[in-house]
């Protein structure tokens, strides 16, 4: 396995180097996506299947689509979209020296670090019995360190508001001249796959309690279904936003916060779940999170305020 790991590590490093140095932007983006997949692979090797799922779904998949779509805008704008003059050789040399030093330092540190094995994670594994779920990462995310997760949802919401403020939509409806030539297979793809993908997303959320998966991965898959609908022309961005959509967008963070706040006077601490209710509460939270995450990611993709079904 050492050989395989070494090869994978080498590929990762080479892809990273190529992504940064290759001249063509498109190639850089594609390399980045491949890099994401390779990382996902390496993370399964490192006992982190949850993260591999997340990286493949969000980091490479969703972000990849977004990058490619943005690349189209960049390409259409013409060649002069680069930022000023290229850095001087001095800057390049300094950056090279700096990055080599940084990399060496990190490599040395990672090889010599004396890892403390008496740590919070070990405690988390021991306390799984009180956490209400079997899957340790889910327990950490939704129980032991649920506050982080809650705040992180805020980050998603903020990024969305920022994108909306920019009014730079990226709605992928087939362009007018393309409508006549639309592939007959595309509707098939959308019709067959969307329910399956939705099912899989839901499964991932539900499975999060005992096996790899969870709200984030499930949400990402849900968003993927949405992206597919958008690309297939079944769903489009809209400048108007319905109250329902907004309510769904904030569902996760609101449910999370309200449960936490309501139980605070009873349990004496914010986000402390009463015994017996831990599992149902966590499932409720997880599903509302997944829904909000999926919709937020989808809207980040369309870059619009709202969504509209099957545009005329």
């Amino acid at each position: 396995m050492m050989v395989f790991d070494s090869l994978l590590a080498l590929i990762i490093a080479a892809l990273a180097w190529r992504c940064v140095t290759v001249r063509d932007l498109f190639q850089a983006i594609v390399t980045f996506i491949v890099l994401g997949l390779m990382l996902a692979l390496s993370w399964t090797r490192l006992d982190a299947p949850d993260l591999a799922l997340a990286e493949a779904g969000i980091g490479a998949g969703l972000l990849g689509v977004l990058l490619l779509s943005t690349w189209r805008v960049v390409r259409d704008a013409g060649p002069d979209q680069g930022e000023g003059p290229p850095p001087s050789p001095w800057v390049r040399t300094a950056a090279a020296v700096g990055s080599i030093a940084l990399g060496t330092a990190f490599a040395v540190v990672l090889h010599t670090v004396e890892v403390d094995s008496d740590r919070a994670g070990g405690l988390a594994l021991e306390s799984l019995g009180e956490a209400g779920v079997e899957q340790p990462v889910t327990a950490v995310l939704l129980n032991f360190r649920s506050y982080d997760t809650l705040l992180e949802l805020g980050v998603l919401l903020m990024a969305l508001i920022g994108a909306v403020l920019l009014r730079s939509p990226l709605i992928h409806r087939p362009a007018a001249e393309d409508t006549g030539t639309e592939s007959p297979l595309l509707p098939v793809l959308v019709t067959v796959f969307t329910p399956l993908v939705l099912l899989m997303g839901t499964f991932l959320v539900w499975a999060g309690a005992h096996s790899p998966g969870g709200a984030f991965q499930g949400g990402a898959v849900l968003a993927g279904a949405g992206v597919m609908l958008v690309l297939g022309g079944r769903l489009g961005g809209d400048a108007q936003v319905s109250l329902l959509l907004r309510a769904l967008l904030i569902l996760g963070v609101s449910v999370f916060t309200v449960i936490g706040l309501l139980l605070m006077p009873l349990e004496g601490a914010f986000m402390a779940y009463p015994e017996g209710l831990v599992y149902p509460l966590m499932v409720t939270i997880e599903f509302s999170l997944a829904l909000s995450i999926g919709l937020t990611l989808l809207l980040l993709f369309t870059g619009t305020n709202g969504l509209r079904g099957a545009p005329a």
Partner: protein
Amino acid sequence: MTEFLPVLAVFIPLLGGVLQFLMGPRAVPVWPMVVSGATTVCALALVGSVTNQGDIQHMLGGWEAPLGIPLRVDGLAAVMLLLNNVVGGLVSLYALGAHGRSGAVNSHFWALWLLLWGSLNALFVSGDLFNLYVALELVSLSAIPLVLVAGPRKTVAAALNYLHFALFGSLVYLAGVGLTYAVAGSLDLTLIAGPLAEGGPAGHMAAACLIVGVLIKAAIVPFHIWLPAAHGNAPAAVSAVLSALVVKSCMYLLLRLWTEPLAGITVDAAAQLLGIIGAAAIGYGSVQAFRQERLKLVVAYSTVAQLGYMLLFFPMAVATAWEGAVYHGVAHGVAKAALFLAAGNVLLYVGHDRLRELRGLDRPLALSVFAFALAGVSIMGLPPSGGFIAKWLLLSAALETGQWWWALVLIVGGFLAAAYIFRVLRYAFLNAPGPTIEIEGPVPPRLMSWTALLLGVLSIVLGFTTAPILGLLGGLPGAAP
């Protein structure tokens, strides 16, 4: 009840912002004002109970450290909360004038501003290294979209640059968090000092990453290049918050990390280096501020310079320097908010802020010019003002530690600040013929003028309220009382 206050101080504005997003323009301005009021009251109650009863701790989820995340409010956090919520409340009042009408953009402004407010409170009460990372990201990602409220066309480049640095800085910080966890096995700020100190190279690397990451986010020279454009082009209320509170929150984090978890691992060379960087920031920022042709850029570069003073704490590291640095943070926060709000009034009235064309402004905008002048006194570090007290403390610390060269930096920095502040005032008082104001916009609503003035007056009043604030702050952590 008091142990719930930190949670409420975070979640009243956060939930308020989220619900503002839900309700949209119809809720403006009543709902944001209700939330602003509630937040301020709650945070002041929190500060009050810390003053009376000492530190407050709340273990989230009821999990004990190191499993759960602690919220802690000690003296330092309480002082920062005080600053944050007083300035935040006043900025809300100002924004009632500037963004009080309904409309999609205003609705988004309020949602983001309330989220930012809550994020800052979350940062100040957090006692967990990784939670601080999330809070930092919350702060950045609500601050950057806020810059866009001024209209994307003007601000998009600045916002993009800001995003690059914010994201990079937080990832550097996150690397530090990871390494810290590797050697310490915990993320609780109170539990990691010892293991870090014994962590060898990894401990040092962790400390370096944490510090550099925060420095990038705090826009310390040479990581400042994103700041002037972002702070200079944002809407006035946002500029005020960014300069007064957002970068300050990073400086707060630097102080906290240095004096608590990293106390055992910091080396004198690093401390001196931080001091030198601070001195460079003071010099560079002030000179740049003096050379700017736009009012808001003058104020923005002034922030670059003023942040340097807080860095002078590190090489001196005595109780006096501690008090001086924190007090400088408070005084600068109040004064800088006043400067930006006053500049915003100028911009509203004149339609631009090109300095050379801002002649004779003291007649139509007497209140704003006066606010600018009062805040300027504090920025220059002249008495009687909060800035002066801070400078006095830092000067005393420089002599106490025998590092007289920092005293020179402080004195020269005061001169440079005077140069750029008086340059602005000179134009404002100038009656001579020359390019004058052509487009005259609406006179700023009284609310906007008076909030600016109130902040200006506060920055003077801070010259007399040292005892209670430093009493709340308490001594340098780890030092003998």
